[in-house]
């Protein structure tokens, strides 16, 4: 085990824990704004994880789009829909318990599957910059999804405007 591995591992654990803190906090806190901000933290953590996974372009995109745009949108929505403060933020006990069971059950089964599957790991994990290649792929192999994505975004935009319009 080289020192690289050690540092790499430490970095992973640090960022992972950060992300998890954000994630847990997000689902457990009662305050909406706090919840959104904690998600911001989580998403930021995810961006760093992308970096560790040699997805440099993706990390930036994550920050720009997710954190920068989507979360801002969420915050706007939270501001626009103020709840009475005394209303319960979390579901009743039974439902929470059931949700917990489902989530934990899912986690266990998925993990078990993942761990026991014999993946065909490659001998050389990816370790390059990706921007150029992503660009080439987007206009090459993935041009169709690319175009469809644009259509999707257009449709979403129009739909959102129409739905949210004042009568």
């Amino acid at each position, binding site marked *: 085990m080289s020192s690289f591995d050690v540092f790499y591992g430490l970095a992973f654990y640090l960022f992972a824990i950060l992300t998890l803190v954000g994630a847990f906090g997000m689902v457990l806190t009662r305050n909406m704004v706090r919840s959104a901000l904690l998600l911001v933290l989580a998403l930021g953590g995810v961006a760093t994880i992308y970096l560790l996974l040699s997805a440099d372009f993706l990390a930036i995109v994550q920050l720009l789009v*997710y954190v920068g745009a989507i979360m801002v949108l969420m915050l706007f929505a939270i501001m626009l829909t103020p709840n009475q403060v005394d209303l319960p933020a979390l579901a009743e006990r039974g439902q929470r318990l059931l949700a917990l069971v489902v989530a934990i059950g899912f986690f266990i089964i998925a993990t078990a599957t993942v761990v026991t599957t014999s993946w065909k790991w490659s001998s050389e994990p990816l370790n390059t910059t990706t921007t150029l*290649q992503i660009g080439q792929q987007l206009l090459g192999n993935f041009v169709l999804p690319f175009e469809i994505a644009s259509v999707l975004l257009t449709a979403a935009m129009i739909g959102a405007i129409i*739905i949210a319009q004042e009568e």
Partner: protein
Amino acid sequence: MLLPVGPIHYLIFATLLFAIGMYGALARRNAVAVLLSIELMFNGAAILFVTFARYLQIVQGFELAGQLFAIFIITVAAADAAVGLAIVVAVYRLRHTVQVDQIDLMKG
């Protein structure tokens, strides 16, 4: 096992995020909170894709497919968030509430 960090760690981590998001989607009462949780689930899935992009033997020419997938996930997530929040706002306008358990017009 803890070190060196390998693909399994990332996979477990991503699944954990997904599970947390799932819990949030089922247990929160605020509609926006549910949407936030869903965003978290998207991210979990995206991390899975990226992990496979890095560590898996992939067909020639599609080495970064996982990362591209993650990009599209983000795109779709954006669209979804936009429309979803538009709906939430519209519902708020009508019902003055965004508690999911109070929006039950389709009851019975």
